């Protein structure tokens, strides 16, 4: 039953919540609006709210100036590639730990989690040197490899918490019916595991897409992802505010949409299942 409060209190709380929410959202709103303004309007002494001369030229300029699509393509390859690779390694591991736990399973899980605690700067220098010697610096596959490794613990943990919720009785019933292991996986486990795998996939694409330590330190022009691309705007060149906004909007829009869809799973994934 919903709590009953006086309407006036409710109006007050609603107004306050909307004001705070919109203040928090204002930087994103600023990007959305500035992306469609002309450069002159973007830095006008008396700022406008809505674009006065609606233009798409910023988007064209961003593509011309620094090849947006190449960086977007790199981002997609690295985030999706590392997630799929992570799932390929993580699904069997999580499956084994969830359905055939031993007394060491908990320790293994905790150890995997502990690898996530290692600060990136602690291994930056050797990774940088190894990458330099193996000619992996500024390559998409090198970056994909690192991204897989840093997100693998989260992938395994998330999958594990989802797999744990699949009732074991169903598997045993299937086994009683004489189902082969392979059949058990394909016909019983997979359909029940798909939602969890999908959530894991979504969250990890988001995390990899926004990762900004390894992408900036290990890539430059050729394999640069969108995070590295946006960082190149840190030294302003003439009028660039509207172009920065256009590039930013393109970089955050797809992930914002994915994030909105996956916000419930986000809580579970980012707290390693500790808060659901």
């Amino acid at each position: 039953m919903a709590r009953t409060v006086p309407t006036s209190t409710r109006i007050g709380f609603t107004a306050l919540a909307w004001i705070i929410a919109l203040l928090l959202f204002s930087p994103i709103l600023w990007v959305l609006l500035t992306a469609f303004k002309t450069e002159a309007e973007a830095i006008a002494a008396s700022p406008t709210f809505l674009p006065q001369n609606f233009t798409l030229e910023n988007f064209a300029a961003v593509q011309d100036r620094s090849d947006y699509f190449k960086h977007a393509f790199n981002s997609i390859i690295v985030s999706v590639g590392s997630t799929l690779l992570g799932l390929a390694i993580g699904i069997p591991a999580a499956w084994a730990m969830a359905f055939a736990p031993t007394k060491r399973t908990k320790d293994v899980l905790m150890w995997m989690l502990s690898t996530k605690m290692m600060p990136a700067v602690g291994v930056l220098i050797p990774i940088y040197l190894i990458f330099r010697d193996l000619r992996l610096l500024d390559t998409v596959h090198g970056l994909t490899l690192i991204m897989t490794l840093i997100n693998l613990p989260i992938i395994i943990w998330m999958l594990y918490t989802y797999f744990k919720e699949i009732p074991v009785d169903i598997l045993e019933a299937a086994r009683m019916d004489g189902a082969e292991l392979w059949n058990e996986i394909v016909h019983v486990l997979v359909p029940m595991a798909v939602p969890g795998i999908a959530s894991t996939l979504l969250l990890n694409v988001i995390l990899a897409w926004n990762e900004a330590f390894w992408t900036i330190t290990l890539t430059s022009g050729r394999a640069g992802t969108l995070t590295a691309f946006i960082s190149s705007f840190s030294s302003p060149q003439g009028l660039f505010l509207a172009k920065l906004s256009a590039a930013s909007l393109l970089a955050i829009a797809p992930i914002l949409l994915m994030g909105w869809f996956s916000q419930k799973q986000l809580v579970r994934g980012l707290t390693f299942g500790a808060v659901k």
Partner: protein
Amino acid sequence: MATAQTRTLSRVMMAPAVIVLLIWMIVPLVMTLWFSFQNYSLINPMMTGFAGWGNYLYVIGDPSFTQSLVNTLILVCGVLVITIVGGTLLALLLDQPIWGQGILRIIVISPFFVMPPVAALIWKNGFMHPGYGMLGHLWKAFGLQPVDWFNQYPLFSVIVIVAWQWLPFATLILLTALQSLSEEQREAAEMDGANAINRFYYIIMPHMARSITIVILIQTIFLLGIFAEIRVTTGGGPGYASTNIAFLVFRTGILSNDIGAGSAGGVVAVIIANVVAIFLMRAVGKNLDA
């Protein structure tokens, strides 16, 4: 036997994950440790050999280290205070019966999905720039002199940006925890005549305590490694005013090519993170038993 077969199978299934994580965890870390005791500079190839504690003394003895350590603490604590206090209040507000709760939730969580360089550059150019930033316009509207945030208050500016990114995270987690508090429990307290403040202290806070702990620990892990926000705004400056340990390692090892000293800094960063990690592992581990 089926069980033996299952056991072998599960070992095989876990092997790839365990092996890659084992390599990932051990090889670079051992190399960092090794380099930290070597004289190794990419600029000066003549500088070789065992350095003993030289790199550590050099890094820790340098005033930039002390400042970076203090900056790291201020950055982590500043963001934690803002996000935990703000997140708790915002979660309590969003938990009230208000109109548009679902949409509000989505709006509030949005900054968390903005990639760090974008967040930093929006704030730097769109809001904090003294000439054409929105805050500058706001200051002018009140007849005040616009503030040159990144030159005058570099660390504070970085804290604002990072807090903006992590406030949604804290809010979302705490709101989720709050909503799992059973309605009956609250109503019972209300019936017993507990007022809002008592309900907050005796019912809500104890329930939230564990979630708040988890938010603090997880955020600390990420906040210790803040990098992109500094890289694209202040570049660690002016001087070392906004350099944290993570950025100092990058500056020393990659920008100045001093592999030995950079590695020593990296080892220090690992030690600091491990202290936090031990507490986090305990908190998460406890939950695993439940």
